[in-house]
């Protein structure tokens, strides 16, 4: 198993760092899946994480100048590592002005991702800072836990309101209640609702637009017969939603969510070279 990659471009480095920072805000530990073309940060929904799951996909060619991978075996040319994204984030933080950053899989006392940054220096010889980030190699038999999540059979898909607005609304609602109901319809309308014994608050958003999921057999085929005024809703733990919105460091070019009525809230943030999906299960 071998992995070596190198980033030379400062812009790519900053962008990669922001993605890693976003992931680190969402979870303490996740799986890093490496293939020849992509990197994935995967969190599979478990009871321990409150059932949320995450899938973040990066196209390696948009970040790395060099990328060499030799997977577990020829027919399974991939590597799955369990890593704490905060370590990666910390290692990248002080390397933002590096001339180059190399990442490779090494074995010190235990398997590590070693990040070596060449920094500008006062002398002719560059400073080199090396960070060894401990990782766990995930055996092949467990890989099925970390597959790409299927697009759920959603009832409504809608673009989100401007993130800043949505975030400030959710922040304030969090002070009043632990649970938030998010509902939307195919008419571009979305409501965020909280209800307690003393108070109920609803914020209405209009004219958001609904993503045109195509004819590729996606659920919208049946949804087109759906009454456009009919709301699909899920009730979620507001802290999880807030954590997701707060952690964003990359401004997505498209932000949308899919709602499976009373089941799942599926958030999708798309950027040119990064896609982030986050699943929050409904609570009764």
């Amino acid at each position, binding site marked *: 198993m071998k992995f070596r990659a190198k980033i030379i471009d400062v812009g790519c480095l900053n962008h990669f760092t922001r993605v890693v920072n976003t992931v680190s805000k969402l979870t303490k530990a996740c799986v890093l899946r490496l293939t020849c073309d992509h990197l994935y940060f995967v969190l599979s929904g478990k009871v321990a994480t409150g059932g949320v799951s995450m899938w973040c996909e990066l196209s390696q060619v948009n970040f790395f100048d060099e990328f060499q991978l030799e997977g577990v075996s020829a027919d399974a040319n991939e590597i799955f590592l369990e890593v704490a994204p905060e370590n990666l984030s*910390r290692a990248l933080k*002080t390397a933002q002005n590096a001339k180059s950053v190399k990442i490779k899989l090494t074995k010190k006392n235990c398997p590590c991702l070693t990040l070596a940054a060449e920094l500008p220096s*006062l002398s002719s*010889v560059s*400073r*080199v800072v*090396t*960070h060894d980030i401990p990782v766990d190699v995930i055996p092949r038999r467990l890989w099925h836990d970390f597959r790409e999540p299927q697009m759920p059979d959603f009832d409504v898909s809608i673009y989100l309101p401007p993130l800043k607005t949505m975030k400030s609304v959710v922040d304030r609602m969090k002070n009043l209640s632990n649970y938030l109901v998010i509902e939307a319809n195919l008419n571009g309308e979305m409501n965020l609702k909280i209800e307690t014994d003393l108070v109920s608050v609803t914020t209405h958003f209009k004219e958001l637009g609904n993503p045109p999921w195509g004819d590729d057999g996606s659920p919208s085929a049946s949804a087109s017969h759906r009454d456009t005024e009919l709301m699909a809703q899920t009730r979620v733990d507001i802290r999880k939603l807030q954590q997701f919105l707060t952690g964003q460091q990359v401004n997505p070019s498209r932000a949308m969510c899919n709602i499976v009525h009373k089941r799942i809230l599926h958030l999708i943030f798309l950027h040119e070279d990064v896609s982030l999906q986050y699943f929050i299960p409904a609570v009764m």
Partner: protein
Amino acid sequence: MKCIIEGNGIKVFGKAVHALSRISEEIWLDPLEEGLAVRTVNSSQSAYACFFFTPLFFQQYIPDPDTQKDCEAVKCKLNTKCVLPLFRCVSWRERSVDRCEITIKNPDSRVIFQFHCRHGITKTHNLGYQECEALQAVFPAHLCPNVLKSHSKLLGDIVVHFPISQEEVTLSISSLKVALKTFYEEENSCIKGMNTELMLHPDEFDYFQVGEDSAVTFCLKELRGLLSFAESYGLPVSCHFGVAGQPVSFTVKDMMLEAHVVLSTLTDPDHESPSQSAPGDDCSVTISKTSTVEISTSEGPMEAEVCIADGERVASSQGSEVFHPALHMRKMIQLHAPGEILPRPSLAPESALTTPITPATFKIRSLLFGAVLSDGVDGNTADLPSLVCGSDTEEDGGSEEGHR
């Protein structure tokens, strides 16, 4: 003692206290002829720091208005937690405070911090102090084989790569490179956290001298205070060290003040140097739990010997048993007991603050500033670092060396 600090100096003084607070909860105020020394030592005696302010720093400095003799000048110990808040709120302070008067009132056992602010407002803080003898570390910096000097920004750029929570780091030096890396005690250190290493070329330093290739491990946390002080004022920092086990010192100097931090380093478990066996070394191994400080000089028949237990857990290390801070620190921190059986103060961290070290039981001989300093004393003690520049007393002669 009475002194007046003006304007910007108040901020500097506050930052100095802040840097000292990183090391321990108590600071010693030692008004000397040559200036005011503010010192601290941590509970395990593995880190010592001193900020020395020359009279130039003050608008007015009167060490002891009442008596002539040095030994009458009151030295006192204050709780840092009480002093630190007085110097917080920097931005407010810059705008409103004109000057700060610090007075030590002997009969009342109080140190008075009086802030004269704009609009005729005066804020007076009375702090009780504990009287004690001076604390002093003697560090023969000029005997160190390895010397690094650089601008504070370089050191700041180096330590920024290490997490704030990182306790120990290893500084290694050879003629080809200087490296700083995280240190973990256990073999399977990888599992705990990230290992970080930074390597630089000797050219990056303003002054680089390697007398002996070595790697010293010390507590970075305790040094950060001094580094951020130096960075605030853009002062150069010099670092003197030797081989593993010998203390490492960091110094910042300026016309008006001089700051030192001396840290003990881990001994290399494979190479216990034979020169460390001093009288009383044996007793240090057998004494458990209670810790005591050894006197390494041979002067005076009435010395009681006290040793720091080697197995003692050190506050600054990550629970390491093999950390022997005292082996070299005790040679530096000279504590003298006048023959009484000492009540064996325990220097375990949790009790350091509650077990007062009474002045009657400890008398620390001030080697540098004592009026009597004979050259007949053995070589070690005669080689003193200069904690004062340009002292104009007769002691200058053979026993003090200014830093270049």
